[in-house]
């Protein structure tokens, strides 16, 4: 039974609404920030703060670009 629950977890797709797609960017950007900063920082103690700063920077940058493109699209339509 555990096998079938695990199998269905990875074989069945989730239903995602438009707003949830924006939220799903948060963990993806966090993992990018953690991995990148773990390769770059000489001491692991620096990683949490550096990753947090990078995470916020990526999110602000991407949401700004996204909002800008959406605004341009709305102006042109």
């Amino acid at each position: 039974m555990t096998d079938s629950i695990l199998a269905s977890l990875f074989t069945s797709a989730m239903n995602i609404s438009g707003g949830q797609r924006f939220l799903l960017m948060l963990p993806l950007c966090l993992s990018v920030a953690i991995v990148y900063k773990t390769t770059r920082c000489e001491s692991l103690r620096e990683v949490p703060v550096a990753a947090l700063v990078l995470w916020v920077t990526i999110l602000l940058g991407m949401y700004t670009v996204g909002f800008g493109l959406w605004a341009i699209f709305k102006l042109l339509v």
Partner: protein
Amino acid sequence: MTKQDLSPALRASLAGFLAWLVPGLGHIYLGYRARGLIFLVTITATFWSGVAIGGVAGTVNRHQRRLWFVAQIGAGGQTLAAAALTDRVLPTLPLARKSDRRLDNQMRRSDDLTNRYLGDWSAAEVGVHYTGVAGLLNLLVIIDAISRADPSNGRRKQNGQLPQGGS
């Protein structure tokens, strides 16, 4: 033969291969245990979250999403496992057998069972991005493992650091 007995090139190749096979294993092999565990947990969680969001057949599918599969294969063993799972799931889908390359969204939505496994557009796209990014992140980890395996590496030479367990 210990890992110190291996030539730098062989040690770097082995670390790179292990990092490809299991994210972080190359670092663990070189003595960077904590770093390796961070890579293992982060990349594995990202990859399998993507598979769970988009469903394995709609996410890791080397027939329908060839270019994404090139990015995903960076995650090595996990991608091979997911691709094997896709090969097991795909034949059970009525519309997704040999002609799945020509399967368009309209056809997918016409069949509830197929749609359940391949997912709607947004779920599959999010899943593909998660798994693709996980594969590309592991490429970065592989390069980092190879550079750390070489004792003449500029970064460690400059700081006088050699691999110590736990960092």
